[in-house]
């Protein structure tokens, strides 16, 4: 299988361990990723909060580049995914706006490229059987909750991913890795990532709520699929108590697959997950 790959801006900065782990696990699962040539930022919240036309046109340029090969486009960052899906939704369903965006960007939309989140590709295209077959170091005893956040699942007509109120795909994946996945009711509650810098007190309250409920569910760490959530969840755990590790699902895949180089991922975290991971798993760094 081959896919276009849209790393997004966080891949070279705050979300480096996500980018690296996505590339590593897709490689061993036999998926060839082709980084989109000369891609641009999707505009994120700042574009859609202030200028709707810009918010559609910026992702459309990336879709235009992806169309050259015609391969579906993998977008690991949930925010980038959401912005590209929103632009694609307009291009697919609104002929009038499509004409305008095509003019602004200078391309002709074919609709051939579908924007995909990695969890969906792993479950739908690769399959959990293939994932299970790759597991050499089961994550036995790792008590975790899946945290999907907002933009991977909402709004449902744009996201087209799992169930918007009760998604299970990441849980199924983590179970296949051997983890002890706890059920909880806050998997899609907002972490306040969008207000992380501009109103950090809100992010602190929302993150505190999530970590409290995760602990109550019996989890020792949060597993996420969004680099903006991940930063917020690590940065905004307040107080002097013990901090809860926040890891990407792809990092846990790499760990369960016994991949080399996972230590470089853990070292990138503000809350080092190694004491937790290696206190439980008998696999060394």
């Amino acid at each position, binding site marked *: 299988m081959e896919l276009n790959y849209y790393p997004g801006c966080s891949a070279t900065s705050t979300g480096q361990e996500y980018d690296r782990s996505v590339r590593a696990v897709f490689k061993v699962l036999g998926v060839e990723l082709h980084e989109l040539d000369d891609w641009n930022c999707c505009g994120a919240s700042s574009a859609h909060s202030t200028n709707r036309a810009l918010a559609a046109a910026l992702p459309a340029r990336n879709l235009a580049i992806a169309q050259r090969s015609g391969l579906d486009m993998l977008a690991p960052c949930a925010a980038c995914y959401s912005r590209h899906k929103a632009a694609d939704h307009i291009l697919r369903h609104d002929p009038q706006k499509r004409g305008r965006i095509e003019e602004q960007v200078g391309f002709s939309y074919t609709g051939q490229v579908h924007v995909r989140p990695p969890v969906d590709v792993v479950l739908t295209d690769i399959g959990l059987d293939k994932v299970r077959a790759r597991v050499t170091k089961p994550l036995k005893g790792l008590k975790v909750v899946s945290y999907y956040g907002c933009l991977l699942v909402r709004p449902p007509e744009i996201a087209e991913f799992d169930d918007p109120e009760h998604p299970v795909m990441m849980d199924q994946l983590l179970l296949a890795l051997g983890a002890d996945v706890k059920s909880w009711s806050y998997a899609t509650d907002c972490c*306040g990532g969008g207000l992380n810098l501009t109103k950090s007190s809100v992010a602190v309250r929302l993150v505190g709520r999530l970590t409290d409920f995760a602990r109550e569910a019996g989890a020792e760490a949060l597993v996420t699929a969004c680099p903006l959530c991940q930063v917020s969840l690590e940065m905004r755990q307040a107080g002097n108590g013990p901090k809860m590790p926040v890891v990407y699902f792809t990092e846990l895949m790499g760990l369960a697959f016994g991949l080399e180089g996972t230590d470089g991922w853990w070292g990138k975290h503000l809350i080092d997950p190694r004491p937790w991971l290696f206190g439980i798993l008998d696999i060394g760094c």
Partner: protein
Amino acid sequence: MIDSSFVQQVNALSEQTVELCYHCHKCTAGCPVALEMEYGPDRILRLIQLGEKERVLTSSDIWLCASCETCGTRCPNEINIAEVMDGLRAIALAEGYPTPEPNAPVFHNLFLGIIGRMGRMHEASLMGLYKLKTLDLTADMDSGIRMFLKGKIPLLPHKVKKMDEVKRIFRETGG
């Protein structure tokens, strides 16, 4: 002052029908930031219906909305309230309404300024400029320095090669 055309203005920009709201409060019940808000999403919709333009556009609520989309996902009348909030922010900026939450528009303006110049985000520039603009120099220094030391805030930007294409998009969309 009541502006009876406000609801049409909001509907046109957000492509929603705000009049459909019958105030079941489901949006506000599920809103993660309702606690910090002055009105909450359903009362914002009511104020729009009533033409209370100034009260809505000078409210902190429109900038506190985290765009989590929970409200619109649950709305029985299928109003995408996050889109309404986007529209309100755009009107507030375009018409120059003062805001009690000035950091958010400053952030968005700087963010898009960097994308318009480089095509991609450069966190070091964003953080530096944001601190200078908001004069909040000490906040998050600890995590900022730790991220820098972990190589997560690169000093050199990654620039899009065909910047003429990105600049054209900004020009064409009024960005």
